[in-house]
């Protein structure tokens, strides 16, 4: 094919799920994951299948472009698209790293106490990074302050002192799949709880905690 024939439908197989996405759907999934990660107060499930497949697509396209004639208009169009996709991917990974650094003891604790079939919130590389970050922080605190403290004050529980993500934050969302009877908890003692239905395509402002499972399942998109 001419320079940069990306080709339709290479399969994107997941780990435990068999996902077959077209490249266009893959990029849409990446963008969804990016936006959700950006606006969610906690670190979301890691999406290794999406990240790996996007990197594969980008590498494949890059190697096609290397073989193409330089200065061809098509090449620059492909390059522009590659830059855009790279931006979303980098921003997504950076956003996750910021949250890992911010909530590191809780992230590690959650990962340690994860049940067998539950999806991981950290990729293997992120897990290694989080552990190293924790070890470095502990060493730093010990060397800079703790070892100079009286013996009974030389321990600090990072799990207790580092703030947890605030799952009660408000978030904006758009509904992708209709949901019924979502419970809205009252803000004050005078109010009563009530339920709402989420119509497809509608947009809402609501506390993250109530709709967290809907973000994980892809029924809503944070905006």
């Amino acid at each position, binding site marked *: 094919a001419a320079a940069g024939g990306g080709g339709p439908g290479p399969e994107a197989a997941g780990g435990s799920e068999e996902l077959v996405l077209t490249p266009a759907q893959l990029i849409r999934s990446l963008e969804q994951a990016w936006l959700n990660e950006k606006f969610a107060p906690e670190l979301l499930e890691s999406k290794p299948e999406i990240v790996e497949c996007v990197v594969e697509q980008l590498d494949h396209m890059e190697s096609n472009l290397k073989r193409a004639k330089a200065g061809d208009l098509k090449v620059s169009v492909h390059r522009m698209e590659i830059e855009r996709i790279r931006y979303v991917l980098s921003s997504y990974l950076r956003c996750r790293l910021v949250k890992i650094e911010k909530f590191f003891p809780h992230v590690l604790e959650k990962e340690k106490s994860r049940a067998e079939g539950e999806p991981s919130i950290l990729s293997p590389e992120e897990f290694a990074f989080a552990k190293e970050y924790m070890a470095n922080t502990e060493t730093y605190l010990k060397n800079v302050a703790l070892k100079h403290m009286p013996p009974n004050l030389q321990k600090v529980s990072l799990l207790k002192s580092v703030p947890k993500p605030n799952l009660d*934050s408000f978030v*904006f969302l758009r509904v992708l799949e209709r949901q019924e009877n979502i419970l809205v908890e009252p803000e004050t003692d005078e109010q009563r709880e009530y339920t*709402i239905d989420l119509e497809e395509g509608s947009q809402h402002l*609501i506390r993250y905690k109530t709709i967290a499972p809907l973000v994980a399942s892809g029924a809503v998109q944070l*905006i």
Partner: protein
Amino acid sequence: MEPAEAEFLAEKELVTIVPSFSMDRVHLIGGDLGPFNPGLPVEVPVWLAVNLKQRQKCRLVPPAWMDVEKLEEIRDQERKEDTFTPMPSPYYMELTKLLLNYASDNIPKADEIRTLVKDTWDTRMAKLRLSADSFVRQQEAHAKLDNLTLMEINTIGTFLTQALDHMYKLRTNLQPAESSQSQDF
């Protein structure tokens, strides 16, 4: 989300261009575009349209809603109603800025259009500030914002959610532990 990021998303919207060059179908990762033939209109995403226009390889065709009469109607409707009117494009603000910035020569009455869109935006933002204020005062737990565009939500979003977070922290610290537990079921 930075305004530039909202604009990044808006750049995926399709717009019609009339190319002055030839190119056969391009198989991008995100989908196919073209083929391109001089003089024949074709749809491309805004990010490409703006780039081609800058390289003087095409002329941009303004979207149907980017028209003085239509925008006047919308502005008047917005001023009349208390609620938010549905906008012709979820990215009306970003697209207006991009297209008028790079292709104002292809858009008739560009200055009037700029003013009309700005007036509509100002009215909507005023309404949004009012409704955000009432949301916080009445301590609502939920709001439906169907006709708001991403740029509008984004402009007020961070401030509003952080303010609500602060209010929540202040409120839960005032209540003794037992009564705040009673809100959970």
